[in-house]
């Protein structure tokens, strides 16, 4: 075991696949000598050289679009957009091209690309640099979407993402980048669609992923002191989704709370909630509770931002409302 930050976990995932497969290439804004805006690719340019770690112009359309073309012709590109918010400029390449090519071309073309998207608020980055947009991508057939919550998973999920023959959206939590986690000495690929039970509990299931796993665990700890035992499910991959893990937990606890950092309206949390209500109806002893951000752009001022984003206390209150 050793301590490693979340950002280092991602980097080690990248590094090990780059050592293994010469067709793995990185591209994005400032991913080269600068090491990435959040330092994730630090040292990789020095190790693998200009050809494999390419700085691009500030030009998200071509970052995503060229990755599609490269992936369709034999490479395994890993592209970084500086913020998930910039996906708007890269959306066509991801949604109309990468996601649909295999299907609409009758399987004639594969697009094994990984798109890294730093997401979430909490650093006063303002409305255009703090988005949580997983609902946009989980909505698209043809994409796989993962969202690690710790360094070990970040590493293991990256290995799987790069090996996958389909386009994978790899969402990263900005506030976790410098947070340290215990990581095994060797990290194996973590299969997609396998959730991780971070805490067992008998009274309510908290379904979440990414940064909110931490919040959920804090909430569970506080609730335990009041006699409520919460189970915390870290989905890790949003698509494919480990429905069985969710259903098994709900069948055990009969109550579910879904917490995500997205704006609540139209979020992926809504999808999870609807799915539980639809498929676990008879197991529920209370309505599924959704916790998310307020329906606002993310404000800049720290007080406002903290007010808008969901936190541990929201989870605690949400759970108490079910009893």
């Amino acid at each position, binding site marked *: 075991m050793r301590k490693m930050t979340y950002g280092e976990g991602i980097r080690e995932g990248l590094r090990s696949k780059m050592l293994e497969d010469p067709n793995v290439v990185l591209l994005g804004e400032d991913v080269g000598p600068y090491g990435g805006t959040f330092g994730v690719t630090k040292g990789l340019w020095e190790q693998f050289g200009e050809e494999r770690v390419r700085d691009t112009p500030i030009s998200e359309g071509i970052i995503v679009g060229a990755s599609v073309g490269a992936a369709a012709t034999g490479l395994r590109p890993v592209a970084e957009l500086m913020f998930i918010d910039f996906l708007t400029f890269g959306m066509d390449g991801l949604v109309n091209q990468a996601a649909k090519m295999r299907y609409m071309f009758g399987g004639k073309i594969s697009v094994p690309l990984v798109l890294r998207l730093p997401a979430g608020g909490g650093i006063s980055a303002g409305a255009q640099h703090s988005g949580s947009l997983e609902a946009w991508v989980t909505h698209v057939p043809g994409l796989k979407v993962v969202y690690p919550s710790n360094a070990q998973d970040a590493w293991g999920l990256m290995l799987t993402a790069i090996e996958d023959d389909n386009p994978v959206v790899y969402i990263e939590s900005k506030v976790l980048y410098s947070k340290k986690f215990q990581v095994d000495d060797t990290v194996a690929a973590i299969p997609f669609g396998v959730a991780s039970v971070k805490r067992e509990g*008998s009274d309510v299931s908290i379904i979440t992923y990414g940064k909110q796993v931490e919040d959920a665990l804090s909430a569970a700890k506080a609730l335990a002191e009041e*006699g409520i035992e919460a189970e915390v499910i870290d989905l890790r991959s949003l698509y494919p989704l480990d429905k069985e893990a969710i259903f098994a937990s709900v069948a055990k606890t*009969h109550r579910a709370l879904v917490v995500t950092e997205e704006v609540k309206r139209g979020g992926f949390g809504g999808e999870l909630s609807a799915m539980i209500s639809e498929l676990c*109806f*008879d197991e529920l002893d209370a309505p599924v509770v959704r916790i998310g951000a307020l329906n606002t752009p993310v404000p800049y001022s720290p007080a406002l931002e903290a007010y808008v984003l969901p936190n541990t206390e929201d989870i605690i209150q949400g759970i108490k409302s079910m009893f």
Partner: protein
Amino acid sequence: MAELIVMPKLGLTMTEGTISNWRKAEGDTVAQGDILFDVETDKISNEVEAKLGGVLRKIIVEEGTVDIFQPVAVIGDANEDISALLGGGVMPVAEQVGTPADAGAAAATAGEASVHAASGRIKASPYAKKTAAGLSVDLQQVKGTGPQGRITEGDVRKYAIEGGSGAAPKVKISPAAAKEAAALGIDPSGLHKEGRIMKEDIRSIAAASSQTAVQAAVQEVKRVPMNSMRKIIAKRMLESQAVSPAVTYNMKLDTTALGALRQQLKDTLKVTYTDLLVSIVARSLLEFPLLNCSIEGTELVMRNYVNIGVAVGLEEGLVVPVVKNAYQKGLAEISQDVKRLAAGARSNTLTSDDLTGGTFTITNLGMYGMESFSPIINQPEVAILGVNAIVDTPVAINGEIIIRPLMNISLTADHRAVDGAVAAQFMQKIKAYVENPALLLL
């Protein structure tokens, strides 16, 4: 908009009801679902809920007997003019209350009047509904303690365990503590605590329970008014004793063969001794119509059918639902009827129809180890059969002492109609069937 409250029809055959008690006074604010008054019919007592909220402006009938659908009160806004309603007499309520087209609808009406507002849908969680179905609990009778009064799975289980005796008040308790309480058989609603009841609280209560019992032994006298069911029982038992010159006859039956029959049937149909006795008694009564009659003045009312009442003991009293046309029914059907009626009695969902029309009654105290008693006739019937415990007893057969399962039966019969010899022959008939059930095939 003020509305007249009328005497509800609580069963197919109900034509009038007696208001025994108003729970609300004139001027009280009433919420939808609040209990307004108690109503008694000759067989059943019920609580009537407000179907709309407002102020109880006028109680038209304080106490006494009212025909169904006749106005008993007015609910409306505090300052509303209700003179039109008071002057108007009978309103066309039949349309509103509806004429139940079948017994099912009637049962629903009766049930709704007890806990949930008739118009309001029952709020129960899906898991609670599933649990209720599994436990055969009628959600109409369960009081919800979840958010917004929703019935939770815990409410259903609590109801199932406690037989629906009173709705639990909302108790703030942690789920872990609730589980612990259920496991230890402790009712947490009796605990008074600031904040949430925790597992530790339950454990300390359990530890202190023996001491609590000692403390409870302090002498104390409390006057508890009879509930309406108790009142009905008291009145009817007294009447019976007053009118019937009753004699109780006892006879021991060997249940070896009956027990064997029950075993043989076990895989096909699980039947109780009560089921078997209902069947046997129904058959015997056809041969002894005097025990199946009733007395009106100087006439004996003889019948060519048999409806057997089966007494069901409840915490608040006793009801006698009736297996109709028992003489025509096979064992399976009888068993099903008895089960349904007993469950209905416990969940207070019996209709007047379930409780009327009996021609003979069976009452079983065998499960309490009773060996003999003298039951009181359920008027206007003329006889009642008491069933006692089956006791392994040494008997002399052909000069040898053998252990046999014997059951005493205690028949009380009205001597006005039934002489001792007839009663004895009737009991012999029953004995013959019990000891040699093959005769039932003849």
